[in-house]
């Protein structure tokens, strides 16, 4: 061996060992937990959050601005009447309101009582004008050109008035609207809107295109560099407690893997994302980190078409629902990285969900024998309906073999793909062949809406209670794929206008049993989320709402006693 060759080998060996050292974990792995208790933190410090997408529309209630990432990033800038706690309960935002209640039911009248001294960052009081403006831009009868994301409920408000001292704001609704707490989730400043022009111009142009120089929340934007970062500092006229951190910077980094690498290198301090097996492993290898995991009000579920040549047969749907082992699906998917996220046995509430301080979630599946993986039971249902299984092929009552069933799923979503593959495997026992239709984003949604499937995997956000269910399962609803049941329609309508939480919970659970009985929905599990951050920080929680983790941003801070996280 020549000297040169020897030198090359030594150089290669050194490079390989350096690579191995760089790629090897440096400390003990972290355990994931669901931290929800408030901890003692100190004032001062800063944090950089990794976010996937920059702000493309600065109006959080416009159609283009109302997206997950933008809602979360802009939450600290606005006043909000209600907050969702990590346990899913919805509580009044005591920084803004003394109280908010339905004071009359016919017509439905809601009273908001503002705290003393609530104001925008420029010192203008937060008041009735802001509520009036926020309602008007989301009411098509007042502003047809306003490109609002959501108009339901707002169009039912017939009047908004303030008491003489301006503290009490009274709203009258033309129809009872049970989800009134979900309205005014971002209150826009009327005095800023005035400077932008009329209703449509201010809403579509002024608030959408301009980086906010105002704030009604704990933080205000100090600097925004498009696509690079957003820096927020405390709002000098914030009227609530805190905030603790002196600077919150959002850094735009695409890809979870890149975000975790940035966390490792210290360039960001918080990654908040939907985990996968790989990213959870990556997070566990980072030393001195807290990993919070939990689930949200958005849940994964299967669905079956209830119309068409074969799926219109309730016996077939019932057999499929009975044969599928949904617990096994959870175990083999999110069970690998988020074992604490339970299997859902309701399609209308997530486990532990509170409505009006009452436990709303019920197991409506077990009694119906759904999702238990009972192949014998499923075969019995099929045989009773005239089906037979011959040569591992399901034969229909008319003697013809059942055609292959199409399972529509989103090809880019690993979880949905895995769920489809497990379903494919499980239904082989019934002689049913599943063809997985892994659609891309462009084709998936239209195919779903057009009912171009037999089975499907999707997700539903339950933030709006009955309205969330109505969009799928109401007759001719916006996302309807052909399902129609007058009983479900009646229950949806009743629940949407039921103001008593206990009665609404009963109606929703009844609706759940109807939907499960029809086999139109087979719930799986809540969407898991993880928050990974250095263990010197506290009070960063998994927030189950669609508004994300910044909901309690004023409580975030450096731990008074590091290491207690």
């Amino acid at each position: 061996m020549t000297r040169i060759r020897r030198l090359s080998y030594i150089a290669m060996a050194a490079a390989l060992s350096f690579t191995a050292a760089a790629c090897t974990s440096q400390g003990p792995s972290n355990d994931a937990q669901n931290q929800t208790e408030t901890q003692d933190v100190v004032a001062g410090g800063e944090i950089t959050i990794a976010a996937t997408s920059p702000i493309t529309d600065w109006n959080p209630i416009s159609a283009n601005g109302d997206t997950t990432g933008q809602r979360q990033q802009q939450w600290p800038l606005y006043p909000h009447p209600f907050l969702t706690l990590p346990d899913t309960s919805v509580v009044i935002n005591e920084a803004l309101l003394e109280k908010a209640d339905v004071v009359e039911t016919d017509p439905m009248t809601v009273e908001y009582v503002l705290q003393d001294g609530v104001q925008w960052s420029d010192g203008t009081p937060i008041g009735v004008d802001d509520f009036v403006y926020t309602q008007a831009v989301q009411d098509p009868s007042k502003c047809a050109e306003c490109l609002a994301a959501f108009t339901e409920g707002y169009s039912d408000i017939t009047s908004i008035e303030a008491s003489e001292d301006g503290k009490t704001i009274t709203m009258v609704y033309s129809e009872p609207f049970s989800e009134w707490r979900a309205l005014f989730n971002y209150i826009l400043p009327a005095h800023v809107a005035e400077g932008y022009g009329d209703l449509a111009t201010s809403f579509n142009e002024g608030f959408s295109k301009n980086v906010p120089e105002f704030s009604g929340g704990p933080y205000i934007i100090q600097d925004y560099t498009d696509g690079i970062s957003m820096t927020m500092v405390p709002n000098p006229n914030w009227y609530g407690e805190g905030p603790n951190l002196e600077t919150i910077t959002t850094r735009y980094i695409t890809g979870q893997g890149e975000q975790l690498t940035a966390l490792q290198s210290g360039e960001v301090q918080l990654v908040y994302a939907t985990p996968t097996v790989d990213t959870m492993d990556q997070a566990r290898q980072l030393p001195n980190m807290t990993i919070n995991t939990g689930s949200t009000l958005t849940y994964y579920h299967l669905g079956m078409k209830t119309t068409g040549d074969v799926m219109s047969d309730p016996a077939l749907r019932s057999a499929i629902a009975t044969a599928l082992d949904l617990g096994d699906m959870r175990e083999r998917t999110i069970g690998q990285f988020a074992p604490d996220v339970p299997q859902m046995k309701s399609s209308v509430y997530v486990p532990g969900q509170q409505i009006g301080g009452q436990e709303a979630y019920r197991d409506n599946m077990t009694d119906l024998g759904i999702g238990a993986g009972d192949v014998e039971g499923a075969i019995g249902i099929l045989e009773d309906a005239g089906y037979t299984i011959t040569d591992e092929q399901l034969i229909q009552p008319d003697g013809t073999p059942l055609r292959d069933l199409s399972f529509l799923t989103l090809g880019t979503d690993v979880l949905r793909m895995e769920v489809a593959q497990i379903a494919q495997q499980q239904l082989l026992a019934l002689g049913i062949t599943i063809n997985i239709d892994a659609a891309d984003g462009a084709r998936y949604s239209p195919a779903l809406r057009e009912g171009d499937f037999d089975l499907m995997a999707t997700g539903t956000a339950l933030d709006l209670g009955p309205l969330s269910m109505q969009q799928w399962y109401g007759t001719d609803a916006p996302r309807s794929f052909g399902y129609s049941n007058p009983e479900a329609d009646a229950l949806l309508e009743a629940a949407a206008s039921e103001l008593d939480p206990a009665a609404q919970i009963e109606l929703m659970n009844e609706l759940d049993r109807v939907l499960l009985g029809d086999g139109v929905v087979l719930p799986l599990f809540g969407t898991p989320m993880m928050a990974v951050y250095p263990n010197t920080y506290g009070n960063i929680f998994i927030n189950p709402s669609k508004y994300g983790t910044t909901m309690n941003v004023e409580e975030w801070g450096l731990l008074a006693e590091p290491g207690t996280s």
Partner: protein
Amino acid sequence: MAWMILRRMLSAVGVLLLASIVIFVVIAVSGDPLADLRDRQPPVPPSVIQAEEQRLGLDLPLHERYLNWVGGLFQGDLGPSTIATRDIGAELTDRIGVTLRLVVVAVVIALILALIAGTVSGLRQRRFPDLVLTPMTFVMLALPSFWMAVLFKQWGIYFNEQVGASVFATVGANSVPPPQGFVPFLLDSAAHLVLPTLVLILVHFAAWSRYQRTAIAESLAGDHVRFAVLKGLSRGRVVRSYVVRPALVPIITVVALDLPVLLSGAVITETVFQWRGMGGFLLESINLRDGNAVLAWLLIAAFAVVVFNLIADLLYAIVDPRVRYGN
């Protein structure tokens, strides 16, 4: 020469027009740009969808949309983006600047190193340093660039951990907020530039040095070189004028083909190191099904191809007298 440039420009316009039609049609049929909006939970009011369709011209026939886009180009309007607040032209300008910052240094260094290494390897085939350079470049060629980028990133982090300071930055082109003062800013920029530049240098050095080595080897075997040696010219002059100079033609071609690709976005390097350049612009625009943004990117890319091919033609004439005399 002027006629050649004019001819090239005219043919480039034709190519560009054809490419824009193909891309326009492909994007138009590849998916609904409003799919995300239609998929919202709770559903967005139908009036909003209708307004967006009108704003993007989706309610018009395909040919009319294309003609509107071409018409807009002459007025400096690159068309509406699927993101209402996005100014395609302004964003592209920023992105080109970022990509240039990343690419220019890397290209210059890679080219110089490749020319030196390829020439030395070609002149000293199967002897030192060719015995070291050849396996080294093959290893670099064999490494996927994304893997190399990720590896360098990990090395950077590991190095930082070992020295207890952020010597190498791994995210973006600058820290947030960027440091105040010229020198701190320069050092911060350098800290962000080192790793992605190294990746780009190594990836291109490997390929270009192999081309140069082959060209030198071929040149060495040429009759003109034997003739120059027989004429008794000095070794230095033979190498400079009879070996290296003719061997520059292939590398000019290769670099001229690679540069537009690089300027259109070093997609992988930009993605791994989170540089907001042309490559990221293209990926984001495709994800958003933002047809006008993709077309604008295509215009820049096509322009770069035309310009660099033109430069290559001019350089041929400089390094190879036959081209000049032929014309």
